[in-house]
């Protein structure tokens, strides 16, 4: 089976999705989905290990067709890392889901949920492994369409308008990406990213390519919710079912960042005369990233709905990733890539904790969380740990990525950038502490005496993610170190 390793992570959820749908039985469908997710995760880990230990990308020609005529899966360290990210988060969140959706989604739609979830995951994994730009678009659509449906399953009727907004903006983004892809195909005569990169030098300064760059940047920016293209994100996160929010927040935008890294570093390259992504990297990305870091964090401070608060925090955190990517240095890229994973763990864990809270008190409003520190001590403790991770306190994964990011800024003698990064992370202190103070220092509202701790089936997945975010704050061999390896690969330091 080992020669099929590169295709397995996509294939398993993709084929399991219709099976779950056909099963129609709630328990059987969810059971199958969870099992498949975990098997996918194992496959992903084996894939990453193989790629890292052999030092060469895993290449898989679909249907046996070579790159010039067919689609090739090209799994380098970065791709394998993203595969592990998506599959691990997907598996843990889906394990959380059965109990959580029991309260949030009508029972007869559970098999539907399982199928959509697997499809979305398959799409995200497909984006990571494929080496074909058009294929990226296809998988992007697979994951996006299923995500729209997943979000619309939310209890609140506003979930529908949120979905519609996401649908429109997401489609615009996807269309832009498609236009960019088309233009690139026209200029280079290939859709394979590696070959595109080989031909890119010949198109130096051609206006078509510049237009393609613009379309790709805008399209991907929309998909990754880079400020100010984030308008779809807060409501979508806010009104989706808890487990959907956790999954989407942890994986979807991260994979879009991955696409950004792919086209900047793999296709266009950043050095030499062929580098045409210059203006994007030097100006557009940092400007968007920094304004996002400040504005989105500031907006987060004023939210009264904690899921929305976390959503705005996500927009800010995307800024850190984009900033890291835009620094074009080993530590900068390491910071960006490591933060993909670290933030996925932290934010996934936080949204799962919100799921626990929603399960018990049926609300995610800050006002309803008063006194929760005493009623749901374990959940709130996990929330606090996750919040510390957002701030980037030492011993949390968030610290590791912040370290690399500040280091990258200082290595380029950009002291002001380092100061900006650290100052903006102080904003996180404020919004995290607002929740903590509400939960621990205020008396619980009247008539909510019966609130108790969340059931174990919800707590354990939450604890796993939060625990992992602490673990990877101390032991970075499989997070930041791999991210560093991926960064060196992308920059061509080692091949």
């Amino acid at each position, binding site marked *: 089976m080992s020669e*099929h390793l590169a*295709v397995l992570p996509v*294939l398993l959820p*993709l*084929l399991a*999705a*219709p*099976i779950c*749908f*056909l099963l*129609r039985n709630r328990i059987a469908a969810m059971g199958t989905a969870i099992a498949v997710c975990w098997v996918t995760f194992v496959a992903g880990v084996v894939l990453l290990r193989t790629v890292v230990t052999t030092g060469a990308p895993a290449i*898989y*020609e*679909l*249907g*046996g067709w070579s790159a010039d005529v067919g689609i090739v899966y090209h799994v380098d360290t970065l791709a394998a890392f993203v595969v592990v990210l998506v599959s691990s988060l997907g598996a843990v969140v889906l394990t959380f889901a059965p109990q959580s959706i029991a309260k949030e989604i009508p029972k*007869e*739609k559970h098999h*539907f949920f399982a*199928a959509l979830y697997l499809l979305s995951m398959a799409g995200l994994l497909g984006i990571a492994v494929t080496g074909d730009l058009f294929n990226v678009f296809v998988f992007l659509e697979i994951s996006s369409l299923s995500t729209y449906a997943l979000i619309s399953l939310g209890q609140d009727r506003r979930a529908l308008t949120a979905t519609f907004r996401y649908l429109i903006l997401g489609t615009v983004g996807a269309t832009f990406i498609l236009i960019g892809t088309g233009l690139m195909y026209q200029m280079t005569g290939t859709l394979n990213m590696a070959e595109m990169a080989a031909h890119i030098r010949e198109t130096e300064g051609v206006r078509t390519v510049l237009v393609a760059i613009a379309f790709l940047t805008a399209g991907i920016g929309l998909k990754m919710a880079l400020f100010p293209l984030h308008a779809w994100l807060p409501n979508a996160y806010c009104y989706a079912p808890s487990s959907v929010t956790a999954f989407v927040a942890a994986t979807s935008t991260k994979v879009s960042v991955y696409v950004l890294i792919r086209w900047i570093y793999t296709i266009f390259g950043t050095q030499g005369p062929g580098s045409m992504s210059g203006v994007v990297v030097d100006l557009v990305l940092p400007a968007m990233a920094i304004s996002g870091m400040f504005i989105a964090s500031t907006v987060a401070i004023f939210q009264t709905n904690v899921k929305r608060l976390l959503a705005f925090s996500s927009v800010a955190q995307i800024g850190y990733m984009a900033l890291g990517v835009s620094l074009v240095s080993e530590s900068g890229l390491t910071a960006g890539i490591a933060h993909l994973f670290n933030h996925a763990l932290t934010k996934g864990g936080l949204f799962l904790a919100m799921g626990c809270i929603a399960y018990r008190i049926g609300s995610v409003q800050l006002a309803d969380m008063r006194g929760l520190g005493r009623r749901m001590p374990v959940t709130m403790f996990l929330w606090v740990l996750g919040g510390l991770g957002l701030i980037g306190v030492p011993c949390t994964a968030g610290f590791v990525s912040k370290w690399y990011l500040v280091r990258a800024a200082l290595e380029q003698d950009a002291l002001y950038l380092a100061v900006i990064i650290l100052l903006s992370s102080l904003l996180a202190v404020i919004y995290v502490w607002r929740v903590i103070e509400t939960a621990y220092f205020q008396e619980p509202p009247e008539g909510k005496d019966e609130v108790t701790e969340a059931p174990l089936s919800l707590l354990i997945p939450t604890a796993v993610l939060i625990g992992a975010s602490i673990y990877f704050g101390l032991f970075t061999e499989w997070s930041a170190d791999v991210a560093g390896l991926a960064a060196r690969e992308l920059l061509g330091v080692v091949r």
Partner: protein
Amino acid sequence: MREVKILRVVSAKTLLPFILLFALYVQFHGDFGPGGGFQAGVIFGAGLILHALVFGLNESRRVIPEWVIESAAAVGVLIYGGVGVVAMLKGGKFLEYGVLDAHDRVHGQHTGLILIELGVGVTVSAVMLAIYGALAGRGRLST
């Protein structure tokens, strides 16, 4: 609509079999000429939508129940993926049809292609029907 006999007889009863047959032709001839699963699926679905238009959605759903449509959509995907997996099990890559026939790679290609196009056709026609149902039924029939 029921009172308009001409419509019912001419369009539905007369045309429908031909539409469906044509869909099947496009489906299976796709191997040699223009056509294939997508087009065939659309034509097939369009035929059934015509039926629903003329006789009403309820009548249509009596002929093809909701669960059949939904299952068909899933089954089509499974056929497609399943062919790929069979190829993998026979020692090839995913979707490498050549290995499906032990003696002749070209035969294998034909077999594989016809099978996956069948999968595509089934899914596309089912999804056409599902979309029409969702729009026409205004959620009444959606699960």
